[in-house]
């Protein structure tokens, strides 16, 4: 049993934002350390 109900939250794996000139930017909303860890996981 968990203390918080996680069920109904989106998982932000990727976000899309339009900026300044209308160009679309895709972003992975994690910190630098976490990004590096993700890449490590994906490599091996």
């Amino acid at each position, binding site marked *: 049993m968990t203390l918080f109900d996680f069920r109904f939250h989106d998982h932000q794996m990727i976000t899309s934002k339009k900026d300044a000139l209308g160009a679309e930017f895709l972003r992975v909303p*994690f910190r630098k350390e976490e990004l590096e860890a993700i890449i490590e996981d994906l490599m091996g």
Partner: protein
Amino acid sequence: MRSSNPRDRRQAMKRKRGQTALDIEQQDSSSSDTNAVSQSTEDDSQNQTPTKRRRTLPSTGGDTVASTGHINSVKSTPTKATRSSDRIRVSLLKTPTKTVGSLSRTDTPTRVLDAERSARRKSARKLIERPVSGVSSDEEELEEEEDLLAQDIWGTAEADGEGRANAHGDIEEAAAAAAAAGGTTPTPKKRGRPPKTPRSKRSPTPPHDLPPHEQYFYHNRPGGNKTSNNTLASLSLLNHEEYFSLIRNYVDPHESERAFLHEIHARSFEQWRFELSEGFSLCLYGWGSKRQLTQDFAHWLYRQSSSQADDSDQEEGTGCKIVVVNGYVSSVSIKEVINTVLSALDAPNLPPKLTGQPADMLETLLSLLTEHASLSSNNNHPITLIINSIDGPPLRRPATQSLLSRLAAHKAIHLLATADHPSFPLLWDSSLRESFNFLFHDCTTFEPYEAEIDVVDSVNELLGRTGRRVGGREGVGYVLKSLPENARSLYRVLVGEQLAGMEDGLPAAAAEEDEETGAGNSSADGVEYRVLYQKAVEEFICSSEVAFRTLLKEYVFTSRHLAFLITRLANE
């Protein structure tokens, strides 16, 4: 002891006995005139008038003799301190006496500091230069004397401050500190490193006897750096298991006191009921969550009214109607409030819901209320409206507050509100206050704001939404594992590009910004759509734009679809 040089000690002893100028002259076999003059001025300098001293200060002698003179004339005090440690020990125990003219009133702390600094620099230069350049035997004694003086200046820089403090009773603690700080790196001596003297203790006595302008600067000096080195970055983060175990074992030491306080507040329930019945609205303020209190009040009120109803004849609605609004919930709105109050009115021929502009809805509601109040023979069933956190973020708009005030002004509505924000009175101007007709009660409960504050959300906001409860990267890993190979490759490419972009001189803070708040930075932070597409094509991940978009959508939909499973897995 600053130096164990026997000659030094001998000199020091001699000086102590007051044979200064004479001795030095005797030792200096090849003393020049200027040297002798300056040596004599050195002793006179104690009794010198300030002007004389100043004249000797800016001497920029290039040769060693002049610089010696410079040092000697400026540093009357080092000679005092260079008398042996005995002298200093004695002077430490002596009651401090002020020697006249020892420090002139124009000898400001900064000037002395500068003088000391230049003396140290010059002596350091000499200490270095002489071994390098070679010594001629003629001047050896003179130079040894200078050498010792220089060593003393360096070595006694710290003791100097101390000696001065205790000998004269007027210390510039800044000077002492600066001297101590400046003299920390002793230059390599001819005969080995000087023993590191202990730093002088800062005298706690603030400098008195400063000229008034210096006093001003001393009083208005900037404080030390108040930023602590204890940063949050040095903390290790708490993970879920640790948190849960800690929270389970936590026993609140103030449980009983809080319960007692709650009981005290509960004694006012009768008073509150009376005040409500007289047409006032109540506002409970004070530190701590008042949710439990209002809940108890609602229960109490209901029990009271049902027991009253038992006495009188049975009517359609036994007990009063109570509507509770939780203003801290982010989805609450005035429309919802109006509709809920409407539903509490069980009169016939009511529409189930009102629609339209909130103002119109309110008009309708008020007219219905008036109708209902006039219809029922017994007017003793007003609707009690309890608004928890009337100053909650969703309710803070002035339009909302004015509608609430009109609702509260209706005689069929009894309003009990609680406020959490310390500036809650700013919500209402005098006209709103008039409509509300508030009575304020201090209901400090010290209860934690468990319901009002969603901890996880606010922490996520603080940390910039790192992976929002996917458990961070673990959830991402699970999602990716369930996806085909090219989806994984694309994600890898995306993350790689983003990392590369981040390392190209962007602050790490940019990555931590919330997507919504990072208006300026988020553009640079992500990867441009076109760029990513090109890369994907290059690496044979996808061949068309449609396929590309499909892959991107996978991340969003798959993650949502797997949400429940992932969090369960992550929490195990």
